[in-house]
């Protein structure tokens, strides 16, 4: 800080004065406090230097005068006071500016951090909102679904059940979590259900449908149609089972009533048909038989007469023979009548025919607790024949297999329907069951008409089936399985070979 008396002539600029003083000071670093004299533009000037700050680290005040007695006592005092004030002022100003600098720095850092945090927070909020939205949406789907939805662990223990499901079974979700779904499944339906679950868990099927009965909390029974699938696990959620359930009780009851009526009707129709049939066969055959008996009786009487009426006896014997022939012709006519319908031949894919039959039979099979599997050969050549008749044979074989398992309770009731090419270039279809098998004593009679091991059967299914196969230049036969049950097989030529 330099003050120049305005009266000074020659006007050296303050910069010039400062430069000179700095040069001087640099050469006399210790010349502090006691007054010194320097010559300045050939004038003698008394200088006094005063340190600012404790060690002069803040600067120096230089005061000078042309008076050589400078500084006098009062001037020295004033200068000290001024130096102190200046030092304090400088220090304060320095602190203040430092404070200002620090504060603005901090403010800036805080602002920046705040901004970063705000961005992160914003993103988090968005993600969270999305998760909540998604969760809410799915929860809402679950809660408001028109059909029952239940989730269970891989042992069948309930994890969650939606309101429709709870209502259907009469249990609250909390109560359901205490049990496995098999515990509330009607006992007869458990085996089949569990077999299907195991296949699901082993990956043998992606999902399955089952119609089964649950025992409600109040003890009543509800029929449900379940579509069951495995939901794959994630890092946080293990695999679980999901069932979509629909109450089909009304339909089942109606169906059962209908089936009962239908099977009664079918039985009546079969009995009636058979009665009519036997009556007309009896009538047709008994007419000539009546002639035979009468003629033969007459013949004997004529021979027994005294004398014997030989001419009459010959005549009645001839009539007897003629009536015998007539009776046999009646039989031949009847047989012709039964085998009259010639199959209408067409070329078709046996696998398609099997699929149709399977689709039609699945409900009845399931009612009988039978699991139907199919193993249909790809690239199976087409066959030629009466599609309906061949399908009738397949229906017969499936029904036969299913019936053979009706008393089986200690193992799964399984039917395997399989198509394949056979060694002779034909096509082969087999139906394998796990039923009672074939007893040696009935093996011979298996395909005879009216032979049956079933209480309510007519025993014509296999016989008719065999005759249908024969009409198709095919064969139908049966073998015993290595395990339980039997396999019925038919082979027919493929369409290019016929």
């Amino acid at each position, binding site marked *: 800080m330099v003050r120049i008396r305005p009266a000074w002539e020659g006007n050296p600029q303050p910069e010039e004065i400062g430069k000179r003083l700095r040069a001087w000071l640099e050469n006399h670093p210790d010349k502090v406090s006691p007054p010194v004299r320097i010559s300045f533009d050939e004038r003698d000037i008394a200088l006094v230097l005063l340190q600012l700050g404790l060690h002069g680290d803040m600067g120096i005040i230089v005061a000078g005068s042309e008076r050589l007695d400078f500084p006098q006592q009062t001037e020295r005092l004033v200068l000290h006071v001024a130096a102190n004030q200046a030092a304090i002022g400088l220090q304060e100003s320095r602190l203040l500016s430092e404070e200002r600098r620090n504060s603005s720095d901090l403010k800036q850092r805080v602002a920046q951090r705040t901004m970063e945090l705000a961005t992160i927070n914003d993103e988090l909020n968005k993600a969270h909102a999305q998760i909540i939205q998604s969760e809410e949406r799915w929860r809402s789907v679950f809660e408001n679904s028109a059909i029952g939805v239940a989730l269970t662990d891989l042992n069948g223990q309930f994890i969650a059940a939606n309101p429709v499901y709870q209502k259907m079974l009469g249990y609250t979700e909390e109560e359901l979590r205490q049990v496995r779904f098999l515990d509330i499944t009607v006992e007869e339906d458990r085996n089949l259900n569990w077999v299907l679950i195991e296949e699901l868990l082993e990956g043998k099927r992606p999902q399955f449908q089952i119609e089964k009965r649950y025992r409600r909390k109040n003890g009543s029974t509800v029929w449900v149609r379940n579509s069951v699938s495995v939901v794959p696990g994630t890092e946080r959620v293990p695999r679980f089972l999901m069932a979509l359930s629909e109450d089909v009780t009304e339909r089942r009851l109606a169906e059962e009533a209908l089936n009962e009526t239908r099977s009664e009707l079918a039985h009546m129709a079969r009995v009636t048909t058979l009665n009519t049939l036997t*009556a007309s066969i*009896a*009538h047709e055959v*008994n*007419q*000539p*038989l*009546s*002639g*035979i*008996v*009468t*003629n033969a*009786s*007459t013949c004997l*009487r*004529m021979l027994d*007469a005294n004398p014997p009426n030989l001419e*009459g006896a010959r*005549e*009645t014997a001839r*009539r007897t023979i003629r*009536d015998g022939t*007539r009776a046999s012709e009646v039989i031949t006519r009847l047989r012709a009548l039964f085998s009259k319908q010639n199959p209408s031949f067409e070329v078709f894919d046996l696998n398609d025919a099997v699929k149709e039959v399977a689709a039609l039979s699945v409900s009845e099979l399931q009612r009988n607790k039978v699991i139907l599997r199919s193993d249909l050969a790809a690239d199976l050549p087409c066959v030629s024949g009466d599609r309906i008749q061949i399908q009738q044979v397949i229906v017969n074989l499936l029904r036969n297999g299913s019936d053979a398992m009706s008393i089986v309770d200690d193992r799964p009731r399984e039917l395997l329907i399989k198509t394949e090419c056979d060694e002779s270039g034909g096509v082969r279809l087999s139906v394998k069951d796990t039923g009672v098998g074939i007893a040696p004593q009935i093996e011979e009679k298996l395909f005879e008409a009216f032979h049956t091991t079933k209480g309510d059967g007519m025993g014509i299914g296999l016989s008719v089936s065999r005759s249908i196969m024969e009409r198709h230049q095919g064969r139908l036969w049966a073998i015993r399985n290595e395990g339980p049950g039997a396999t019925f097989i038919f082979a027919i030529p493929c369409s290019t070979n016929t």
Partner: protein
Amino acid sequence: MKSRDGRSTIQRPLVAVVDDDESVRESLPDLLGEFGFDARVFPSAEEFLVSDSFGQSKCLVLDIAMPGMTGFQLQQELKARGQNIPIIFITAQKEEAVRKRALERGAVGFLLKPFSDAALLRALNTALGLG
């Protein structure tokens, strides 16, 4: 009357046979002849009704199921005309209801085809009060 030597009997009772089946019409008269009866055969109820043996027959051997008028209808027609000729039904229909119906309506015999000569003779003897 003994049937053993029927051919020598002068007054042989007439038995009418109504059946649409030819083998019956052919074979029964000979057997009836062996029993000592005269026999006349008719292929239908209608033909029997218009024949001259209608009033002379001592017994009617009658099939049930025939085209046109059935055996039962003929039975009713005869009753309506005040003819109380004994009737032996012969049929291939093995139904208890048919048998019951026939006997309820006053048939003296009901034979299922094929029937034995002995059964027929027993029925004829009953019908003619010879038993």
